[in-house]
């Protein structure tokens, strides 16, 4: 456990000090502030536009940071041979995978949490009243981002950094749409199509089910029971992705 904590702390320090991350976060904050301008040209909709645009920015930049930093961090350890530093010591491959994930989770808590808090404060000051739902939506965006990290960590144990990032982004996009696959399969499709759709629905994480951005801008009500259930599914998904990554790492030679 001490080794996992050491690797997680090391990963957090390494990523949080990376200038690329600073540039991405600054750009995200600029995008959130740009929502002010969009709001100003939307008649009577300033608060709604700001929250909507801001939450999309938090999601997009959170996922970009997750996909690219997670992939480069794990691959870089292998390609630049820092992994020798770890595995020539009594450090298990599972401790490496879990430590990396937790370190990135801490970094993303700062990044996504910081952006969400910034959006909350901006809407509080100039957006015509803040809503606690902005913070709840941010927490659920964080859960989606963490799932992308787990998926990218897995892919980066089997392929190159750039391909792992692309696959991670692909899974995120597919996860926004996976519920549609199930809906479409029910429209006059055969049993085989429906079975395949179910497999796709289970294998691709259903991010749409925990997306409450629309509720944060007051456009819908939320089935919290359903959100809790799907949030549990995403946690289980992460555990399976990390366990598989650990298994692959254990079989790797360097």
């Amino acid at each position, binding site marked *: 456990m*001490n*080794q996992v*904590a*050491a*690797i997680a*702390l*090391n990963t957090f*320090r*390494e990523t949080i*000090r*990376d200038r690329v991350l600073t540039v991405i976060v600054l750009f995200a904050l600029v995008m959130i502030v740009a929502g002010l301008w969009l709001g100003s040209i939307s008649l009577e909709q300033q608060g709604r536009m700001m929250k909507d645009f801001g939450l999309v920015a938090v999601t997009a930049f959170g996922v970009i940071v997750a996909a690219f930093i997670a992939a480069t961090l794990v691959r870089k350890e292998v390609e*630049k*041979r*820092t992994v*020798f*530093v*770890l*595995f*020539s*010591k*009594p*450090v298990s491959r599972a401790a490496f995978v879990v430590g990396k994930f937790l370190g990135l989770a801490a970094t993303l808590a700062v990044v996504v949490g910081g952006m969400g808090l910034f959006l909350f404060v901006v809407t509080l000051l100039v957006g015509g009243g803040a809503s606690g739902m902005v913070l709840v939506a941010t927490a659920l965006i964080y859960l989606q981002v963490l799932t992308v990290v787990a998926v990218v960590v897995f892919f980066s144990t089997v392929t190159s950094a750039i391909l792992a990032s692309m696959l991670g982004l692909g899974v995120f996009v597919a996860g926004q749409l996976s519920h549609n696959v199930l809906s479409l399969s029910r429209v006059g499709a055969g049993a085989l199509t429906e079975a395949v759709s179910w497999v796709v629905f289970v294998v691709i994480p259903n991010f749409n089910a925990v997306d409450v951005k629309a509720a944060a801008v007051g456009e819908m009500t939320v089935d919290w029971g359903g959100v809790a259930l799907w949030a549990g599914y995403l946690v289980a998904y992460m555990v399976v992705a990390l366990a598989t990554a650990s298994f692959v790492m254990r079989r790797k*030679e*360097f």
Partner: protein
Amino acid sequence: MSSNSPDAQHLVRLSGVTKTVHVGLRRRPVAILRGVDLAVEHGDVFGLIGPNGAGKTTTVKVLLGLMAPSGGSVALGLDGLGAVGYLPENPYFYDYLSGREFLSFCARLFGLGAGERKTRADALLRDVGLEAAADVHLRNYSKGMLQRIGIARALINDPELVLLDEPMTGLDPIGRLEVKRIIQRLHDEGRTVLFNSHILADVEELCTRIAVMKGGRIVWSGTVAEALTDSPEGLEAFFMRVVGDEPAGAVGDGQPEIVAGETPS
């Protein structure tokens, strides 16, 4: 890896170690190690020399468990990896950590407490002459400084066996001198050092025993004095005589050999 002691005299013993990897879509078997027999005594400074592709780095990786041998046996007279220190070739560490943070991180992996981590890191930074740069990020270190922080890292767990892969490569004369002094001090402290190098003058100066690798095998091993008795002109002449000067591409010139139809064990 076996943790049983090979015998009272030896700290490391490899017997008939083979390593075959499979490359390409057709999974062609390529033999990297073809029966390595190696014995390192307690307190030796042991030099493993050979041309590029001879299998030196692979031998070290097999010793460390970074690669599993396809055959043969590996015996370390130590209590697992906790008593081994390792410096990889061309080490890259974490750009955004300071030297002190990096050593503290490595110490924590060995389970050292906070107080002990600080004491040990400070002592090693002093020993390798990096006290003044202790809080500088590693991306600002020169190659020589990185090599020295790498050696400090290899010593963080107070190891009995220190494995150094090409520790002098790419260093300027001052950097080489500093690394040589560190290796000499490790020897004086009674530690066992095994290092790979292409710089034969350093091997001649530092080592008590050497082994010459070629084509995945040890083709000669003995003391430096024996080698110099054989070739009074120096270790370079001895090396050329043992390894031969066949042009690159000739069979047994140090390149890994493709094993047609061989199934690794």
